[in-house]
């Protein structure tokens, strides 16, 4: 039986990689995927904690995180596509204003 702390440590590693991805990349799609990575790491930690405590509430919360992530991806990608239609470029360095 692998101790739950290993899972939480792995979750911390994945979360940190996601943070670095958001900082160093310029493509909004890749930044978005890094955010998914972080959400996923948080989910892993929630499941591990829930396993440790011995109830299923952590897993229920992960279910809601998944639903929110799905909604977030749909809206976020629509925003990126709309920005691309206006700007014809895809780099977050260009996106310092919401309205032009």
């Amino acid at each position, binding site marked *: 039986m692998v101790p739950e702390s290993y899972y939480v440590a792995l979750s*911390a*590693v*994945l979360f940190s990689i996601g943070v670095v991805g958001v900082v160093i990349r310029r493509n909004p*799609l890749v930044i978005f995927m890094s955010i998914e990575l972080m959400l996923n790491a948080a989910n*892993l930690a929630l499941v591990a904690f829930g396993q440790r405590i011995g109830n299923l509430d952590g897993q229920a919360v992960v279910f809601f995180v998944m*639903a929110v992530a799905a909604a977030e*991806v749909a809206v976020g990608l629509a925003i990126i596509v709309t920005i691309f239609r206006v700007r014809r470029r895809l780099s977050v360095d260009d996106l310092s204003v919401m309205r032009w």
Partner: protein
Amino acid sequence: MAHVAFFVIAAIAVGSALGLILRPNAIHGALFLVVNLGSVAALYLMLGAEFLAAAQVIVYAGAIMVLFVFAIMILIPGKEESGPDPRRGARIVALPVGGLLMLLLVFVIAARWNAPRGSAAAVGRLLFTSYLFPFELTSVLLLAAMVGVMLLARRRA
């Protein structure tokens, strides 16, 4: 045995996450993310969360990643991030900051640390009893997201 499996899967997860943030090509990143999501699903199985492992593969690796791949193919015609980086400073600072964050999280959480099974039936019972209201809110959220996406993506005539 379980330890070996955990470390193999963890190595795959970390490697694919690094691939996602280091490969310049976005479509490679998306495929790396699929591998990462799959390995996390395997970890869910090891933790006994069967329902979540299935939901992870269906929702994340299925629906969400298909959306990502579509968006990448529509928006980036085979192009990589090119040209000199206007923010080199961020790139240099990112590694120590990320490493520090990782060490902090690992040590703080794992140091202070010293189980039922998540079958679909058990999680479903929980979702439809104590989490019934958030569950219904989720459907409203998804509906709002759907309407919002249609509004955003519609071509203004």
